[in-house]
């Protein structure tokens, strides 16, 4: 059948079969025993033209209500930020997006240099010494960080503060279990921040890592320095899972003594896209670099004396070391690392600080408004960045439904993760919200609560 993606004509096929010396295309499949062949057409609909595709997928897209058509206050690990226009245009360069992992560096200097610039920016942002070329996403970056800590210390236990996103913790447990690594999860203090006493009680000489998230899942800010002190007093490594935009204002992990910093790069200009593709980042102290999972780009010289970029330290990797590799990573998330690089280049140090300040200020303005709504409490005393927990006087489900009717996605209901929190709502406000929208949020919330009560 003639198809836009299939160039061979009947004329081509005849000439090619003649050159090969076969009577028919199907005889090229003779090595597949007849009883292993399907022997019937696939029970699937027939091919569609481009116009039909556009119509069909346009229909499905239309069955969604994207955050861009609503006012969204959803966060919980997925953040709505404005992506500078240049990001989409750079990512649309098909010399980038249709290329493979840069195995032939002479042909792929562009992507290799972009990866090297990405690594540099991750290091500058986190205050760490070295970064890799990317991991799959934030949860995976945390899991790899924990495995790396176990390999580096020779210990088989990790302590996770429950301020880590619940799905991140689940990913760690999935990865850790088969290697016999014990995962201990320690509840937060009433303030919403990590419970230092409880963490201390679980830290011992068998512990490879103490991992925490900042800002944490509930939006609260942690004291990295205290956590570093705790971890290091038992010879464990500190794994800091951090949000990149907040690092425009917050002390970077390298400054408070983290050994490994990791996190999710989505807030840096990457579309929400229902949860992926995003990009996990990981950075560490120099001493740990040979334990690093995944690809790393480095600088070297070519035989003409020019500066050139290349994938390096490959003796850590699966295609060289097979079962002795530091990870099984092959395809990672390079294109999204490029998106983060372009975003950080567009923002620069001043822009990043401005975005972070706007997030901080809008969230605090909103928190001030909603805390005056009768019956609403802010249960956590710890300081926060752009996200905070609200405790409603009624169950969150009805309030969220009512607000959705007014075009507002009110927040992420914590009952989704913890049945014991039916009235708690995690609310996020970024630079994308205007004062008028924040004012309206508080009004609509007050009305919805009143109607529900």
């Amino acid at each position, binding site marked *: 059948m003639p198809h836009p993606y299939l160039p061979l004509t009947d004329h081509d096929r005849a000439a090619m079969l003649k050159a090969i010396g076969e009577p028919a295309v199907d005889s090229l499949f003779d090595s597949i025993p007849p009883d292993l062949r399907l022997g019937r057409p696939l029970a699937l*609909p027939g091919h569609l033209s481009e116009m039909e595709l556009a119509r069909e997928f346009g229909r499905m897209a239309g069955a969604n209500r994207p*955050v861009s058509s609503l006012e969204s206050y959803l966060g919980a690990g997925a953040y709505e930020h404005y992506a500078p226009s240049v990001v989409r245009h750079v990512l649309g360069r098909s010399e980038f997006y249709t290329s493979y992992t840069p195995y032939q560096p002479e042909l*792929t200097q562009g992507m290799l240099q972009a990866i090297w610039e990405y690594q540099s920016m991750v290091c500058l942002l986190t205050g760490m010494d070295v970064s890799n070329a990317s991991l799959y996403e934030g949860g995976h970056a945390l899991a790899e960080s924990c495995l790396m800590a176990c390999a580096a210390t020779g210990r088989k236990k990790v302590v996770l503060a429950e301020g880590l996103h619940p799905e991140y913790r689940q990913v760690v447990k999935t990865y850790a279990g088969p290697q016999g690594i014990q995962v201990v999860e320690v509840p937060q203090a009433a303030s919403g921040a990590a419970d230092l006493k409880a963490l201390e009680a679980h830290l011992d000489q068998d512990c490879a890592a103490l991992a925490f998230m900042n800002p944490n899942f509930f939006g609260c800010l942690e004291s990295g320095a205290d956590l570093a002190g705790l971890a290091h007093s038992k010879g464990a490594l500190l794994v800091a899972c951090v949000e990149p935009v907040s690092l425009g204002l917050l002390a970077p992990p390298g400054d408070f003594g983290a050994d490994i910093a990791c996190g999710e790069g989505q807030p840096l200009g990457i579309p929400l896209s229902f949860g992926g593709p995003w990009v996990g980042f990981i950075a560490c102290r120099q001493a740990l670099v040979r334990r690093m999972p995944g690809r790393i780009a480095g600088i070297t010289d070519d035989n003409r004396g020019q500066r050139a970029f290349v994938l390096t330290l490959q003796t850590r990797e699966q295609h060289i070391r097979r079962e002795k590799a530091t990870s099984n990573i092959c395809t990672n998330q390079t294109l999204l690392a490029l998106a983060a690089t372009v975003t950080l280049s567009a923002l620069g140090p001043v822009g990043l600080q401005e975005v972070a300040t706007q997030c901080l200020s809008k969230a605090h303005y909103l928190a001030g408004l909603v805390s005056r709504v009768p019956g609403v409490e802010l249960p956590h005393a710890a300081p926060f960045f752009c996200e905070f927990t609200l405790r409603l006087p009624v169950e969150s489900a009805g309030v969220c439904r009512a607000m959705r009717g007014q075009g507002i996605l009110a927040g992420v209901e914590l009952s989704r993760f913890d049945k014991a929190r039916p009235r708690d709502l995690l609310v996020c406000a970024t630079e994308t919200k205007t004062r008028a929208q924040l004012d309206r949020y508080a009004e609509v919330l007050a009305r919805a609560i009143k109607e529900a009560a």
Partner: protein
Amino acid sequence: MSSEPLIFELSSPGRRAFDLPALDVPEATLPGALRRGRAPELPEVSQLDLVRHFTHLSQRNMGIDTNFYPLGSCTMKYNPKVNEDVAALPGFANLHPYQSGDTVQGALEVMFELERWLAEISGMDAISLQPTAGSQGELTALFVCRAYHEKKGRRPRKVLVPDSSHGTNPASAALCGYEVETVKSDDKGHVDLEDLKARLSPDVACLMMTNPNTVGVFEKDVRAIAAMLHAVDAQLYYDGANLNAICGLARPGDMGCDMMHFNLHKTFSTPHGGGGPGAGPIGVKEHLRPFLPVPRVEKDASGYHLKEEGFPESIGRVRCFYGNFGLLLRGLVYMRALGGDGLPEVARGAVLNANYLLALLKDRFEAPYGDRCMHEFVLSASRQKRENGVSALDFAKRLLDFGYHAPTVYFPLIVPEALMVEPTETESKETLDAFAEVLRGIAREAVETPELLRQAPVNTVVGRLDEGKAARQPNLRWTPCPPPPA
């Protein structure tokens, strides 16, 4: 083309490429102890300088859109533009993963439909779309395998991999806590049944097999192999890297395979992005369904749902949220473009193109597995190495001078001086003819002027790199000048 400065070298304090509206609420501040002392030394560039920098970098890169990319085992087929347009629709691109189900019915329909398509294509009973890449698919399936045996109170320790397997197979097995044993290939490139038999015991959890395998040969004894494994309650894993060869014509599920992964970024045309993102869904047979990751997509009279609870035997999550949705979407757009009638034509085209190219090249190189192949083939430059002192690497580098991406080299490991070529079905006969002409010319050069190969590439923006220096003296990031003393 002269070299492109680092973006840091273009920086000048005070420049910017993006601005924000004025802050319209009172400015909040953080407690001093939590604040950053100094701003990160990110570049400060104008918008035009930023655009030129990254445009120049793109011009120093080669993709499928610019050049033929016959990289074996990577299935570098055309990445249709309509896939990109669909993924950029606000109705898909701007969906938050925690929106309520009633606001994401279209996205859930995409996931549900994709599972249905993958199940029919593979003959598997249940699909999980969660894994992010092929190797995470392998790992996820091995977690499933482990959970399956543990439920039976068994803990087999070994995973078997053929010596022709992808490096990710043993690496994934080790990550899942298994010991790895390598099974030999016979002289036809098949898994050596005698060697396999000798290694089988109740301590074997699984054999990971690629079919057609990495030398481009179909493992015709796959059913017998499955039976041998099942006799000791071991599972047969199908590495889907080479599914393009048989898609719509033969199905892993009908061959006795118990679990598999798909590479949507190979078989189903989603772009490789210069090293990702990919998507590596897995398929399993009924007995392994209970162990699949959560959440799962279900459909009932009221619509589509993501279901988290009610799967007590699930391995949990291998990543946050639901997988690389944007890639899952592109994969489905591609499948629907080809349809049930077009997917077998993809396999036929891929196999015809590979055999044609092999026919054009086989008199110039050693072809250790004969003159027929599936969707890819392996040549060896052993003779040239022996007689002319040029290696597979030299051939690869010389090809770059003529504007072609090189084949995969030195893989599979069982073929010395391997050149592994996969043209894919989206290339025209004219492209294959031109490539063969060039490679045949290089083979002539290897005899007459071998120096040209050893010095190659000369037409690229950089020449051969000192990879040893990169590893010995790692330079992995830009380091800012220390701030002037206060």
